């Protein structure tokens, strides 16, 4: 089981702040993970449609779309950061 976390409008569109999911072993990169997750229901498809404006962190480290999941226990999806 992998812990998934959603922030900002990704959270609002998916409708939950987080959940536990079994990710199929065929899913090995961040890009493949986003493709797979967007097929889990209409709200996922809607939330993840604009891949260019999504950012992903694996175990709290910001990664690019081609990064391997490498057995990450926590995957977070969010828009570009806008703090301060």
């Amino acid at each position, binding site marked *: 089981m992998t812990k998934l976390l959603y*922030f*900002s409008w990704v959270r609002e569109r998916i409708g939950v702040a987080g959940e536990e999911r079994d990710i199929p072993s065929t899913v090995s990169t961040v890009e493949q993970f986003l493709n797979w997750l967007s097929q889990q229901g209409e709200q996922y498809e809607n939330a993840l449609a604009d891949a260019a404006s999504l950012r992903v962190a694996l175990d*709290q480290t910001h990664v690019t779309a081609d990064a391997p999941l490498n057995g990450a226990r926590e995957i977070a999806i*969010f*828009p*570009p*950061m*806008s*703090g*301060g």
Partner: protein
Amino acid sequence: MSDRTIKIAIQQEPFDTQAETDLLTRQSGNVGALVSFSGICRADDTLSALELEHYPGMAEAQIRKIADDACAKWPILGALVIHRVGKIPVGETIVLVAVTSAHRHAAFDGASFIMDFLKSRAPFWKKEHLAEGGRGDWIDAKESDEAALSRWDQAAHSSHRS
């Protein structure tokens, strides 16, 4: 590294800027320069407050990494970052960054560097609360904030302003 004072806090509550910077200065050893930045929730015609969301754990770790990077680039004695989350009314302080050093350029550059990276590399997001009630939109990240990071790549920067 051991004699540097670094404090990172993420909290809902307002804080006392003077008390925080006084404490930082006292803990920083032989300080000659203190630079502090306060980021304040700006009014516009329709805004009543901002709602700040963050990624607990990652936010603290990222800010600490940014502060450590600043300490590696300049002779910094102490660094302080306090970032508020939750609903912040117009006019209140969202973020405080303070840096102490022996001389002014390290303090100015350190504080400016930390703010630039905090804006685009620390996991916070802002949503508008409108004056007429109800929530507005999430505030998009600015391209100019991402662009601002590149100026810190110049190797000359840390050397000619010691």
